[in-house]
């Protein structure tokens, strides 16, 4: 088992070194085969690990001690269990597909940059695997910051573009704010429990040692970390900007895997989170608010990737709603289905952008259905899945979260359904504007429209199938299913809790949410089938178009004041006050020094000579110290 786990992590790292160090050596073909191959091998080993967990249960392996001091120890342990083995499959599975897709999508890049791209992507997979495999919070944190680094590098992949660089920096800094919360939570755990290993922290005994304040503080700080990484209010604004990166990156990092790290973290720590009522409320409220806020913004965006980005933020919000109401397996379920359909949608968008020669504005598209048949069909499946239409996967996972939300508080459910309706609306607005109606691009673009090569369409097809059928892993008892997933997760989140709703209520809720979503999507189809959105005219439209002016708010309320503070410190305090005082003293000294400066004649040689003579004299004192004896004797007296 040690070997298997070690190799799962090691292959992507080897890939990173292989392509990173050999970026000027290998041909593009070698780079592509290797980068994709390494992740594929890692996937195979992940399957082995998964099967091993199925038959033998969880396994923890020890590699070395990361930190081992007299009174404090952090082992470098990795663990596969029900939860991490699921994430392994998603990360390496979707990861391989996206690597394959990238080999064609990034074809125009020169070999060294092509290698750089894949090196980053492999490094990302490595970090993400560390994040989910680590057996303690510090290893998770290593992966946590590692994926942040890769995200930074890949958002700014086209580094000559200043806007992209800003987006990359923004992503890293906002993530760092979250990371600080995560770090403080780790420190808190160390102070109270002296350990950060899951095996010792996440037990009833440890829980008993923590006061309610401790638990609330630790979970809230962990949640701050999750807010950063998983783009929740107020730390979500980096994610839409992160779309500056190449589209496959958006699919892998900013939709399917990295941004779900926060959900992984909270599910992993569910024992702590369930113990704090307050934190659960905060998580649920932040989750549903983010879901709604992002959905309203998505309605008015015209950049195909921006719509998907806000949609991701919104779907992540649903997952946090699920976590907040205690539906941990529902949240993980949605992570999995979302990984499929959102990766599919992003890759579909990439295929469209590829065909449109880097045009991302959907108002300049339209009617792509005929020219891009595979992209069109798979994208449509993705839209249906995310809209929550049965029997596609999104329906099952979303419904599970909504049912749990209703049981906790019907208001959560109501808001959730409103969000679901908006989701269906903006996704079909996107679909219709892009694929139906008349083509609105240039003649030149129309002439070159083409379906993408098979390296790109194959991942689309596989992900489309997965998006369609992945719901099967969590068919509720209500429908005569067995809910494989929640049984799977029993070791992590405990026994499947019966939702305290009667069957008829559940059916009614389900019917209501599905029909509202279907109505919304029909409205969208009807409205956008002939023409795309114009510039927003109404105040509300502009407000949404400008994303609630949140970026502007942050800029004026936080960034600028801090910038001014820094300037004040630099120009006034440092230069005038502190250094002024020092220089004042200095000038006084200088004045008196003028009188003895005749001794200095400016010849370095002499200075050095005198120094050497002086030192040798001092060494000589070792044997004979007449002069200095007197000096010191006088001094002491």
């Amino acid at each position, binding site marked *: 088992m040690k070997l298997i786990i070690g190799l799962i992590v090691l292959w992507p790292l080897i890939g990173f070194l292989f392509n990173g160090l050999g970026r000027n050596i290998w041909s593009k073909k070698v780079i592509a085969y290797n980068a994709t191959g390494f992740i594929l091998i890692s996937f195979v080993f992940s399957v082995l690990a998964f099967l091993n967990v199925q038959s033998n249960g969880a396994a923890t392996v020890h590699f070395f001690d990361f*930190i081992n001091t*007299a009174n404090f120890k952090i082992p470098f342990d990795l663990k596969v269990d029900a939860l991490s083995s699921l994430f392994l499959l998603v990360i390496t599975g979707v990861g391989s597909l996206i690597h394959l897709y990238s080999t064609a999508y990034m074809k125009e890049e020169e070999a060294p940059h092509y290698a750089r791209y894949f090196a980053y992507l492999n490094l990302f997979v490595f970090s993400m695997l560390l994040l989910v495999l680590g057996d303690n919070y510090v290893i998770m*944190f290593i992966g946590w910051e*590692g994926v942040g680094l890769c995200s930074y590098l890949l958002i700014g992949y086209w580094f000559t573009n200043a806007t992209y660089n800003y987006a990359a920096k923004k992503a890293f800094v906002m993530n760092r704010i979250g990371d600080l919360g995560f770090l403080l939570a780790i*420190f808190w755990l160390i102070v109270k429990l002296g350990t950060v290993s899951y095996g010792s922290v996440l037990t009833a005994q440890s829980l008993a040692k923590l006061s309610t304040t401790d638990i609330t503080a630790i979970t809230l700080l962990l949640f701050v970390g999750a807010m950063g990484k998983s783009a929740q209010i107020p730390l979500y604004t980096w994610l839409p900007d992160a779309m500056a990166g190449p589209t496959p990156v958006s699919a892998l990092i900013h939709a399917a895997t990295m941004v779900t790290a926060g959900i992984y973290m909270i599910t992993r720590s569910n024992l702590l989170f369930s113990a704090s009522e307050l934190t659960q409320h905060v998580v649920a409220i932040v989750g549903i608010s983010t879901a709604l806020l992002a959905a309203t913004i998505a309605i008015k965006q015209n950049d195909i990737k921006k719509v998907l980005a806000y949609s991701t933020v919104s779907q992540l919000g649903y997952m946090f709603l699920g976590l907040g109401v205690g539906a941990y397996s529902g949240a993980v379920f949605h992570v999995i289905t979302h990984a499929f359909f959102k990766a599919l949608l992003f890759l579909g968008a990439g295929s469209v952008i590829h065909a449109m020669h880097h045009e991302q504005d959907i108002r300049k598209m339209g009617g792509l259905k005929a020219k891009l048949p595979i992209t069109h069909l798979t994208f449509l499946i993705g839209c249906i899945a995310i809209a929550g239409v049965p029997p596609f996967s999104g329906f099952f996972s979303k419904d599970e979260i909504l049912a749990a939300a209703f049981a906790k508080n019907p208001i959560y459910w109501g808001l959730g359904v409103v969000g679901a309706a908006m989701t269906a609306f903006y996704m079909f607005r996107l679909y219709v504007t892009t694929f139906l109606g008349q083509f609105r691009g240039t003649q030149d673009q129309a002439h070159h429209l083409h379906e993408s090569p098979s390296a790109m369409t194959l991942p689309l097809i596989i992900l489309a199938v997965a998006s369609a059928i992945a719901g099967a892993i969590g068919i509720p008892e209500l429908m005569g299913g067995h809910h494989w997933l929640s049984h799977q997760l029993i070791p992590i989140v405990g026994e499947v809790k019966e939702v305290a709703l009667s069957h008829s209520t559940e059916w009614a809720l389900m019917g209501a949410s599905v029909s509202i979503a279907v109505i919304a999507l029909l409205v969208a189809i009807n409205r956008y089938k002939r023409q795309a959105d114009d510039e927003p005219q109404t105040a509300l439209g502009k407000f949404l178009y400008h994303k609630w002016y949140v970026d502007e708010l942050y800029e004026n309320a936080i960034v600028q004041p801090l910038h001014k503070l820094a300037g004040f410190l630099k120009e006034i305090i440092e230069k005038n006050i502190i250094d002024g005082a020092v220089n004042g003293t200095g000038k006084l000294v200088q004045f008196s020094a003028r009188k003895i400066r005749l001794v200095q004649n400016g010849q370095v*040689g002499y200075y050095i000579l005198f120094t050497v003579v002086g*030192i040798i004299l001092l060494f000589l*004192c070792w044997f004979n110290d007449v002069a*200095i004896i007197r000096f010191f004797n006088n001094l002491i007296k």
Partner: protein
Amino acid sequence: MLLLSTLCIPFIAAIILLFVKHNEKANYVAIACSGVTMALAFNIAFNGATSFDANWILSINARFLLSADGLAKILVLLTGISFPAIFIATSKNEIKNRNQFLSLMLFTQTGLLGVFLAGDALLFYFFWELALIPVYFLCSIWGGEKRVAITFKFFIYTFLGSLLMLIGIILVYTNTPDHSFLIGSFKSALLTKGQQLTAFALFFTAFAIKMPIFPLHTWQPDAYEQSPTPVTMVLSAVMVKMGLYGVMRWLLPLFPAASLSHAHFVVTLSIIGVLYASFIAIRQDDVKRLIAYSSIAHIGLMSAALFTFKSIGVQGVMIQLFSHGINVLGLWIIADIIEQQTGTRSMKALGGLAKKQPTLAILLVGFAFANIALPLTNAFVGEFLMFNAIFQFSPWMAAFAGVSVVLAAIYTLNMVQKIAYGEVSDAINKMQLPNKNAQSILIVLLVIVFVTGVYPQLLFNISSDTLQQLFVK
């Protein structure tokens, strides 16, 4: 004898260099001798060494005692690695009277090694000055335009600190039972409360200036900016460690009560300094000044961690003493290559390095992320342990200091963005072929960054024995 020869080799080399007028040859002598010193330093760090003891100034009972515990080993290793790295990386720089320059550098190295190895207070003071005086000449003769005024400030500032320390040493000396300068005797000195407080203040001021602790830091950015870059490297990679070393070796063990009663004061001051320097770093346009303020912030965190009196913090500091040296050395070498080849340090004028010299840009990104303590780089472990200690001391202080983690990301990534990314600027376009010497050194340093970052136990093993002795009087 191992310790004595480690000390003597740079000293003898420095004297020999005075007679080697030929630039190339002078380079070889300096690199070869510092290479031997480095080998000896490795030997001391990993195999240990017996102490060396001889009479020095008999009449006042001062002894020439050298000994190396974990703390000293870490710093001897850092000193040993830094000098050949600096000599090789800057071997192509144009320096007038190179032999004299290198000679003074090696005198400095002698002083630094002596400071870290001395087991006698007077000897410590002697080497402390020996390290300082050559730097004065190096800055005032080979420095930038404003060198005279700046060096004067630097010298007066640190010399003032030294004098205060000397008074402190004499004060303790007169109260030792056996009238000796040995550290053991100093620890058993019978000081009244008032005397202990006075001595604490004297020593603390000297070390606080050297580190520096806010608000005694203003000599540093100026000195870093105006010094010739090889000297800046010595100053910030090794020399600032003298202050922290002094605190750990002398201040805390000698005056535990006074130190403990000032813990809150020093931790608070240090953390203010961390944030203050980080904010100012954000607004710097000069690469050297940016690195200088960043370094002040990092050192401030180390001094805060020391005064929390938590063993975990001391562990962190010991690792960080080494790691900070390696990282800042890497950054200075990069800054130096850029300044040498473009003629400017203004980040406004730079940009596009990644396109012009991709390898150097990758190295820059590597050291930048080490500078912001990304996990699996060397700085993470140290900072993690230090923050841990500060958190144990006061969660609010840790949260406050933690803001610097975010600020560090801002100014460091700003620097990366302005230097490496974007279209190739005129200044960067002037860059000729990559400087192979400097780049090889950078690669070696970056390997150290990751090896000690992934497996910090290497450093813990060297330093582990110091912890037990530190807080025990």
